């Protein structure tokens, strides 16, 4: 099974508030509020760390959830965020600058 890599889309604007990320798509100005789990994924999306490693070290370590279930949920979420163009996903490391241009 191939690994999935994620990188934050530099075209999205993002801010953290009360521990959760709010992100606005640069494409269509749609606003997303990420829950705690999605926020961890977003903040870990450096383009270099595979999703299964993020899930194992950051999701499973913090939440009581089975690794396979957590990975399936995380992958589904990553694909959804990629569909909105606020994340980039690839089956190989992503080398574009991973800091969101609008992040503060």
């Amino acid at each position, binding site marked *: 099974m191939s690994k999935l890599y994620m990188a934050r889309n530099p*075209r999205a*604007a993002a*801010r953290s*508030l*009360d521990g*959760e990320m*709010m992100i*606005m798509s*640069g*494409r*269509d*100005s749609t*606003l997303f*509020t990420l829950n705690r789990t999605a926020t961890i994924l977003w903040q870990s999306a450096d383009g270099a760390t595979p999703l299964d490693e993020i899930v194992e070290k950051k999701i499973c370590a913090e939440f009581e959830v089975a690794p396979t279930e957590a990975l399936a949920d995380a992958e589904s979420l990553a694909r959804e965020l990629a569909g909105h163009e606020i994340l980039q996903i690839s089956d190989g490391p992503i080398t574009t600058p991973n800091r969101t*241009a*609008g992040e*503060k």
Partner: protein
Amino acid sequence: MPELITEIERLSLVIEIGGMPVRVHTIDPNFLNLLQNRYAGFVNHRDRAEIEFDVELQRPKGVEPAADVEVSCHSGCWSLRRGDFLAEWEPAARRGWIRQTANPYSIDAVLRIVHTLVLAQQGGFLLHSASAIRNGKAFLFAGVSEAGKTTISRLAPSDVTLLTDEISYVRRRGDEYTAFGTPFTGELAKLGENVSAPISTLYFLAKGKENRIDPISPREATRSLLSNLLFFAKDEELVQAIFHSAFEFVSRVPVMRLTFVPDARVWELIR
């Protein structure tokens, strides 16, 4: 031999909203008169203008085609387009043109869009909200349609100066935000006063069985603010600027929920 070239008199006036003077040129005295009436209180004839627009009037085509507004920027020139107008504005040259029929609504839309573009780069914005000044402080009352913007404006006592019942003009000055009166009206159909004051509080309106003010979380405040901002351009840089402006505003200005019954006593809470 008759004159082959006739010099056409070019008429102009300055529409100054939010402290930003925009000169409008036309050759049609009736249209100039229409603008003077439409923007009464916001019109002057000063020399200095930050933007100059030439208005080219077209004959009405019967029914104007309905279309969403499209705002885009190419090579430093903004293109503004809707069914009833076409406009271009080149910020570097401070000039632009508007092609429309002789009506006040098209140029009104162009002005709103241009102001949102200018404000976005300066940390300000236009907001779907009523606003008013009391005791030297400005209060904003935001909400979707039917939330009560017009109602609370109509209920304002005589010591309140109404800035708008529909679209508030917010400009950032250092760590402070200032609200300006606008000629952009809602149901009340009454132009705001052309004055300004520092913003004291932004209220999100809710109708209820009692008058009360409740705090709301910064997250809810930011989300509500973002959903009530006016912004038309599909421009990633400006979208990001607007996004961050909302966070900055919420970090500096108290944002509350104002629940009210539709009678004048609600203004006892606004001081």
